[in-house]
């Protein structure tokens, strides 16, 4: 039987990697990917926990999170497209006019 902590460790590592990718990558699309990684980490956490808690709460939550992730992806990519239309770039460090 697998202890819950294994899942959590895995989830945490995944989450951290997601954060890492999110922080360091220039390409906005890859940043989105990293967000997905984070969300997946969370999902993993939730599912594992709900499994060990004998409840479906976490799993249902996971479901919602996935939905939201989809919606976010749609809007996010929409924004990227607009950006690309305007400035022909998908690099996060090219959008730094607003500062100070």
């Amino acid at each position, binding site marked *: 039987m697998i202890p819950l902590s294994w899942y959590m460790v895995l989830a945490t590592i995944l989450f951290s990697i997601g954060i890492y990718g999110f922080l360091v990558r220039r390409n906005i699309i890859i940043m989105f990917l990293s967000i997905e990684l984070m969300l997946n980490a969370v999902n993993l956490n939730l599912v594992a926990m709900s499994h060990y808690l004998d409840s479906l*709460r*976490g799993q249902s939550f996971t479901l*919602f999170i996935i939905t939201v992730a989809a919606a976010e992806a749609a809007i996010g990519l929409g*924004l*990227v497209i607009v*950006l690309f239309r305007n400035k022909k770039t998908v690099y996060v460090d090219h959008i730094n*006019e*607003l500062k*100070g």
Partner: protein
Amino acid sequence: MNIPFTLPALGPIMPEMLLVCMAIILVAVDLLYPRKNKLLSQLVVLTAIGMIIMLFKQTPAVTFGTMFIVDPYAIFFKIICLFGLLMTTLLSGQYLKIEKISQGEYYSLMLFSVVGMMTMISAGDLIVVYLGLELMALSIYCLVGLLKNDWRANEASLKYFLMGGFSSAVLLFGISLLYGMTGTTDLAGIAQYCSEAGILTNPALLTGFALVLCGFCFKVGAAPFHFWIPDIYQGAPTTITSFMSVAPKAAGFAVLGRFLIMAFPESQEQWGPIIAIIALLSMAVGNIIAISQQNVKRMLAYSSIAHAGYALLGLLTGTSEGYSATMSYLYIYAFMNMGAFAIVILLCAKGNRRESLTDYKGLAKSNPVAALLMLIFLFSLTGIPPTAGFIGKFYLLKAALTAGYTWTVILAVIFSAISAYFYLRLIRYMYMEEPQEQFVTQYSPGVTAALALSAIGVIGIGIFPGALLDWAAGSLIGF
């Protein structure tokens, strides 16, 4: 086997549902009658007013298990949000014409975001909180990005999106930890389990708490999670900025307050000081950086960071007095900030947004009325009597002092003295410099109404704050 499915009571959630319907109707109307812009805004205004009345009439109730709580607290905050919606709509008419924003989606998205806010305000369960939050956030991402050909708006929306995504991921991770530790996402349940199992000081739990806290702090724009505010406020369409500065902030505070006091009532001495630090940090960042700003919207953005800090002063006490202080403060803040942004919008003209501080030079000469109003709002933001801002600040300080946070209060006071500096600078520009360009501002009925409303609010509450304060205090009975 089959489980009988019973529809939960929908009465409490009626306003939200109506708003959703309204939003959809708006899209439809926009599609059917493309050029009926006035109609749309009037519809929204009516809806907002109707909702406010409806909320006043609403009786406390709990439905969807414990997921949706309608209590005076929630009603209070919902009214703030709707007020924000109302004001924004009043301001929008003129602005949208100038900026050429397609109206249907604009209003419906705004309504959707309000629905999200109202949901998260009433949420008794972290899942609902999260979903409401996302509903709000997603619609606002779109709203910010509505000016598609304006790269600033574009940049703003993307930045907001990225940071928002990050913060909600963090929030979720925190929620997952809380869920694992307590086996529930229901706020009251969490509190109950924690006290039963005596895990209040468990690092894992606290970490989960901390992550959730960070998520909410991001939403209310408190340091060190404030970075999005200046850029987004500056880039977004001004109406949306004013909207963001009032409604989502209020919602964020509502949910933060609920979270703190419902889920972790017993560990106030843990989170109190931490929130105090966050509050002071926000005041420091907001007030100090605002000094060196050249763009009005940006300056107001920093000031809103600082004001978030002030508002936190009330929450950190965990006392009902503190809570009512924060509530009344947010309400007052809605008035004065809306007013300030109304002036910014008033000055905004086609091709020249007049957002730079230097555009305000000699405003007192070119448009005395606008200048006078701006003066009132700015002094209110500074917290000088007899404006409402002072009452709010006073209440907060008093609450924090009563709770024994003397040094926090003294520092807060010093920061607000610093804040006077940049508000004064704008006033100086308006009253003590010579105008650079002569321009006339046309007062559309909407803007006029908004200005009148906020001016009356600022002065009225400043002189007769009794009603508001009693209402705020009353909203906490049995909370």
